[in-house]
């Protein structure tokens, strides 16, 4: 699971459990099995960098979701016209254009958060999630299904980011969305607000997800 981050980019992977049924199924696959963070280990730079505050994480994950959806739908719409050899370049150009649009929106609407996110909005361009979904799914599927898949993956990404950010902000700053919730007498553990804390939070998050997954696997195995 963790060992194949590049594989989604090179060849469309049939074994990704993508082609079972339609709509909802594709969405759920996106949220759980193909979850970018703990399922495919993609797009980790932004996950680690923006999760110190919940507001940042929310804006970042919404931006990524929008870019993934638009990119998947556009790629799917024009998939008949993209020559196979230049498809990477085509993705790159579509994604860059979308990211420029998102970045300019954020600069106008939310200047503070845009400042805090710094280069990480622009780095959505090289975020493997976006390109991965185009290559693994949108290039072979109809716009409707691609939309559901991108929505699922985007929601999965949002979910992961929000969970990590919730704990990092709560422990690191003692607040949620900038509002102090832990009494002032308790000093927050600053470790979780600085970069090393991001790694610890991610590791712990993966640990608990795996725990959940193994447990549900065991239950399924037991009931049979």
């Amino acid at each position, binding site marked *: *699971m*963790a*060992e194949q*981050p*590049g594989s989604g*980019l090179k060849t469309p992977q049939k074994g990704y459990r993508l082609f079972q049924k339609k709509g909802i199924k594709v969405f759920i696959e996106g949220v759980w099995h193909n979850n970018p963070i703990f399922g495919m*280990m*993609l*797009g*980790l*730079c*932004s996950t*680690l*960098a923006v999760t110190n505050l919940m507001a940042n994480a929310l804006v970042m994950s919404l931006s990524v979701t929008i870019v993934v959806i638009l990119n998947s739908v556009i790629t799917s719409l024009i998939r008949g016209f993209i020559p196979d050899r230049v498809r990477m*370049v085509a993705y*790159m*150009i579509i994604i*860059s*254009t979308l*990211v*420029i649009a998102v*970045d*300019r929106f954020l600069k106008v609407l939310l200047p503070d958060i845009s400042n805090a996110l*710094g*280069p990480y909005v*622009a*780095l959505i*361009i*090289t*975020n*493997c999630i976006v*390109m991965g979904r185009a290559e693994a799914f949108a290039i072979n599927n109809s716009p409707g299904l691609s939309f559901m898949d991108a929505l699922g993956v985007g929601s999965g990404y949002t979910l992961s980011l929000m969970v990590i950010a919730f704990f990092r902000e709560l422990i690191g700053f003692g607040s949620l969305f900038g509002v102090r919730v832990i009494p002032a007498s308790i000093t927050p553990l600053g470790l979780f607000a*600085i*970069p*090393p*804390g*991001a*790694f*610890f939070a*991610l*590791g*712990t998050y*993966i*640990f*608990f997800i*795996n*725990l959940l997954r*193994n447990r549900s696997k065991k239950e399924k195995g037991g009931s049979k």
Partner: protein
Amino acid sequence: MKELFLLLFASIVTSNIALTYFLGMCPFLAISKEIKVATGMGAAVTVVMTFTSLANWLINNLILLPAKLEFLQFLIFIITIAAMVQVLEMFLDRYSPTLYSAFGIFLPLITVNCAILGVSLFMVLRSYSLIETIFYSFGSGLGWTVAIVAIGGLRKGLIFSDPPKNFGAAGITAILAGLMALAFIGFTGVVRG
């Protein structure tokens, strides 16, 4: 000169691009199992990083800024990176087959390595001069190499240890990276002194 040296040191150690800015995380967690592979990837990243940020600096300052086209930065930067990688690949293939076989396979991967684009973006955000850009990008590449080789070494040690199974390969690597990041932050005092 002292500032340049400090910049180089900071980009290698205290504000290490992998451990403090989390750039280039995908290869960092995925291909750090073999020290040899990690070294090859690190070398390729360092070379590409230095050349692309140099090219991007020139393009940004000589073309985009005078023409007021800053909003095209992302698009132009990523195209430059892709083109540079392609050129470098062809150049190596033609003139140094040994080097090409050593890290040629990493070159295509580098186009989507966010560390490369990240360094170009930081260079713009912090408005570095040309000479600062060279020091900064070379230092960042070295720093990334140091980090990935070190974590490759640490992961070798994992063979002999028995972490909780649920961490999986990725989880325990993240924890290791966290410990390493803590150690690197410890160098902060050196720069201030």
